[in-house]
């Protein structure tokens, strides 16, 4: 029997991670059936045993795929995404990121040129100080599962902005966390300013790569974005016991 699926060259979506100058890469594919529609995805990832963050661009691309589909569906229904640069209301929420994303964000900051790197580090410090002054730092640090809803609301009321927010826009937009990519609304932007507001209509995605990655993490769980730098400094080194394809199979299988 012949394989009639599209080849790499015919794939609808092409996602890659890794640097061919520095590591061996391997090509592959997956067919993701979304609402009954198969989407062929061509993949290129490191072949050796790597940390999860080294294949993070694949999951970022999958998030973008689900978001693009959701935006197209909303627009076909006459709805418009309200989110744009200049509105940073949701950037004051407690943002959960995967441990791999926390490490990736720490690497991102470390690679920033001065004086920007110091400015961003200072914003992280200022955010933690503000949370401490509000009596929230301990709760945020404990990754509370019971009472997470109340913590999220209290965090928002404290008004602590994401350290990457600059002029009410994301300063790391191409590298932003999966949760940030997947959080979009079609309701009026001003409704996002209050955690108790009615009329928040979130864009419904057919799949959540952010959740899939969180569920695939095999250690402690999610990290509050505001603690990303501290986590990267204090956590054990990232495990490198799986190849790129093995990591993809685990995360994509949880979509």
């Amino acid at each position, binding site marked *: 029997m012949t394989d009639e699926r599209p080849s790499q060259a015919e794939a609808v979506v092409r996602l890659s991670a890794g640097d061919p100058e520095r590591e061996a890469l*391997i090509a592959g594919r997956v067919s993701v059936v*979304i609402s009954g529609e198969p989407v062929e995805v061509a993949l*290129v990832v490191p072949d050796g045993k790597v940390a999860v963050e080294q294949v993070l661009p694949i999951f970022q691309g999958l998030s973008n795929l689900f978001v693009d589909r959701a935006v197209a569906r909303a627009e076909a229904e006459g709805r418009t995404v309200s989110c744009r640069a200049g509105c940073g209301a949701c950037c004051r929420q407690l943002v959960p990121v995967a441990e791999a994303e926390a490490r990736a964000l720490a690497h991102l900051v470390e690679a920033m040129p001065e004086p920007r790197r110091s400015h961003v580090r200072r914003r992280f410090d200022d955010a933690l100080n503000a949370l401490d002054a509000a009596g929230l730092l301990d709760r945020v640090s404990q990754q509370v599962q019971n009472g997470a*809803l109340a913590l*999220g609301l209290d965090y928002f009321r404290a008004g602590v902005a994401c350290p990457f927010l600059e002029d009410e826009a994301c300063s790391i937009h191409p590298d932003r966390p999966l949760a940030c990519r997947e959080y979009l609304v079609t309701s009026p932007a001003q409704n996002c300013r209050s955690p108790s507001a009615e*009329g928040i209509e*979130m864009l419904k995605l057919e*799949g959540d790569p952010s959740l899939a990655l969180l569920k695939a993490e095999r250690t402690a769980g999610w990290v509050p974005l505001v603690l990303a730098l501290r986590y990267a400094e204090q956590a054990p080194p990232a495990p490198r016991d799986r190849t790129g*394809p093995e990591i993809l199979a685990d995360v994509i299988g949880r979509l």
Partner: protein
Amino acid sequence: MRKLGIVLTAAAVFDLGTVVVSSQAADTIYMKVEITEGRNVGAPASVDHKSGKANTIFKFFKIDAVNTPQACMAKGGTVVSKNGQQACKSQQAIRGWIEVLSF
């Protein structure tokens, strides 16, 4: 020194097969956060440790041919009218970051 080049025209070397993403047919109309004082009105609810208030989250799904009123009630929801549309009001974790925190 260049270690390895990618040959995209070659046959795929690894194949993850077919992954079916289970998607919910329901479209959310809107979420509403209601803060009730001193009462636990049911899951999912969380208690604010400082004030003792129970925060109840409701989610509203659009009623349509797939998500029928019967299906809504079978899941423990209530059929209500919102903005001139029928909706299923249910106490479920809201989608988004707060849902992620609760998973």
